[in-house]
């Protein structure tokens, strides 16, 4: 029988092996560099801003094509597209990271409870998960986003209430994914020697779940969370495009697309849709590459 917890030496060497595998893959490295670059740029937006996206409007320079003054052109209000996309990236990242956080925490807790306690917990959580998964994800997000939630002023002081709605909608859509993933891992872990040993020593369920089972399930959760940030970015932009996200003049990438589409210049002034869409693709691509790289390095069996 193995000792109570995995010896730190093997853990460290397996982590080193994983990071060696990660850095050997070109696509994983590209993903990591892109992700870091996007995050740093998003964080720096208010410090390095060339123009203020909400107020710097120049009606005389509406819908200018890309040029020397405005590298990516201007939008229908005469705002600089580069600045808008820069801020939009910041907003998209904020929304997707926070919504995945919401989905990750809620879903993981539900999965831990369902997998560890089984019985009625598992039946009810399983039922709830099945129902959420019965809806196509964008439909579920639309349904949740169209509910008018009343947030306490503490929240609305920090976030735009429209964005809060989107975060919650996209977050709830992510919940069943994490619930299923966690539950399946708990089901196999709870029967393993090290868990049964600590249980035999009289450890309480909370201690077993959070100190022994959860740490052993972290790797797949991290991989899924990374990939989910990509999906969440797409879903949040989709909601913005449907008019359920941030309202103009908030520069959100999906809203920028719908702004151009609904005002009828998406097809004649193509730069107003080309660049925001490209940025969404770049963000999603970065997290997908990173997530794939993490999965291949943390779970070598899936490496093909």
């Amino acid at each position, binding site marked *: 029988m193995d000792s109570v917890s995995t010896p730190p030496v093997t853990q460290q060497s397996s982590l080193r092996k994983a990071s060696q595998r990660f850095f050997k893959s070109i696509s994983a490295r590209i993903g990591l560099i892109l992700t870091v670059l996007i995050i740093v740029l998003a964080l720096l937006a208010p410090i390095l801003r060339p123009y203020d996206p909400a107020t710097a409007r120049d009606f005389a320079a509406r819908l200018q094509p890309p040029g020397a003054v405005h590298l990516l052109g201007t939008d229908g209000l005469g705002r600089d597209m580069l600045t808008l996309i820069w801020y939009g990236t910041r907003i998209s990242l904020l929304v997707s990271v926070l919504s995945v956080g919401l989905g990750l925490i809620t879903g993981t807790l539900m999965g831990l409870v369902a997998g560890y306690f089984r019985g009625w917990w598992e039946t009810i959580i399983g*039922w*709830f998960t*099945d*129902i959420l998964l*019965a*809806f*196509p994800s*964008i*439909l579920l997000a*639309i*349904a*949740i986003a*169209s*509910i*008018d939630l009343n947030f306490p002023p503490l929240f609305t002081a920090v976030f735009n209430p429209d964005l809060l709605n989107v975060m919650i909608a996209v977050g709830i859509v992510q919940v069943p994914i994490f619930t299923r993933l966690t539950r399946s891992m708990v089901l196999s872990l709870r029967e393993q020697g090290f868990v049964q040993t600590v249980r035999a020593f009289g450890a309480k369920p909370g201690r077993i779940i959070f100190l022994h089972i959860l740490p052993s399930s972290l790797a797949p959760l991290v991989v899924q969370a990374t990939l989910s940030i*990509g999906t969440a970015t*797409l879903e949040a*932009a*989709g909601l913005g*495009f*449907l*008019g359920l996200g941030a309202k103009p003049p908030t520069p959100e990438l*999906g809203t920028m*697309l719908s702004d151009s*589409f609904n005002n009828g210049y*998406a*097809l*004649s002034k*193509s730069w107003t*849709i*080309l660049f925001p*869409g490209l940025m*969404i*693709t770049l963000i*999603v*691509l970065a997290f*997908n*590459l990173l997530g*794939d790289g993490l999965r291949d390095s943390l779970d070598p069996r899936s490496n*093909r």
Partner: protein
Amino acid sequence: MLRYIAKRLLDLLPVILGITILVFLFLKLIPGNPAIVLLGPRATPDQIASLSKQLGLDQPLPLQYLAFISKLVRFDLGKSIISGIPIWQEIKTRFPATIELSVAAMLISMVLGIPAGIIAAVKKNGWVDNIAMSTSLLGVSMPVYWLGLLLIYLFAVNLHWLPPSGRLGINVDLQPITGFYILDSILTLNFRALGDVLAHLILPALTVGTIPLAILARITRSAMLEVLSQDYIRTARAKGLLERWVIMKHALKNALLPVVTIIGLQFGTLLSGAILTETIFSWPGIGSWIYNGILTRDYPVVQGGVVFVAIVFVLINLLVDISYAFLDPRIQYK
């Protein structure tokens, strides 16, 4: 086998019940009293109160839910508040449009995705593999409605090769029989309409098919790689069989199982209406209809549409499960 199917159907009942409860509650939480929407902004409080009573909105929630369910099982989904058209009738005219688009999209994704996956697996790490996998990663990373806009920009606005939106040109006549325009134009031997219908279908089908295409290519590749590493493939090769024969006959047949599953699941997703793509292309299907229902606070449309879509989605997933049990004799029907 029959018992297995019956059991799976019984398992579905609580899920379908949950779907109806959830949809019902969502609509109660959406702001805006439907009586006010129906009467317009100049309605008096008396009018609103009497219409609310007429619609049953003054009843306690559980009773409203029971009324909703008892109508649902009789396929009575009510009428649209805005247009007055019965929901069930609207579903019957719109669902064929969504099915036609989904089938076309699935065909495109299968014809391109499965061969791409096979070649990528056989020539692992070769240039076909690298291009196919990079493209498919790009495909799942793009907002598809954005791709749709770019396709419209390129092929409709600039090159004038294809129409930008709709299902049929305004100057083309087509006698609707089944609601499937391709079928209708063939049945009536109306080849002018057939050409027009196909031209309208290409761009939205390409757009909707992008994600299934990307996923199919990846799944086919990994399933093929899994199978190609098995002993019986080595045996087949050792027997001196032609490599093409080994791949097509021995490997592909066994790799198809996960591929079929993905085809089914993706088809279920598509049938539930590509809301964003249908909106971009003004495609008169289920997705664009539900979206309009949400925008105009048309309760019965959203309620009926979403319940319908979710049930279709669940049933297709059930069919996939059952076909899986058929295809893989190792699965026990318990």
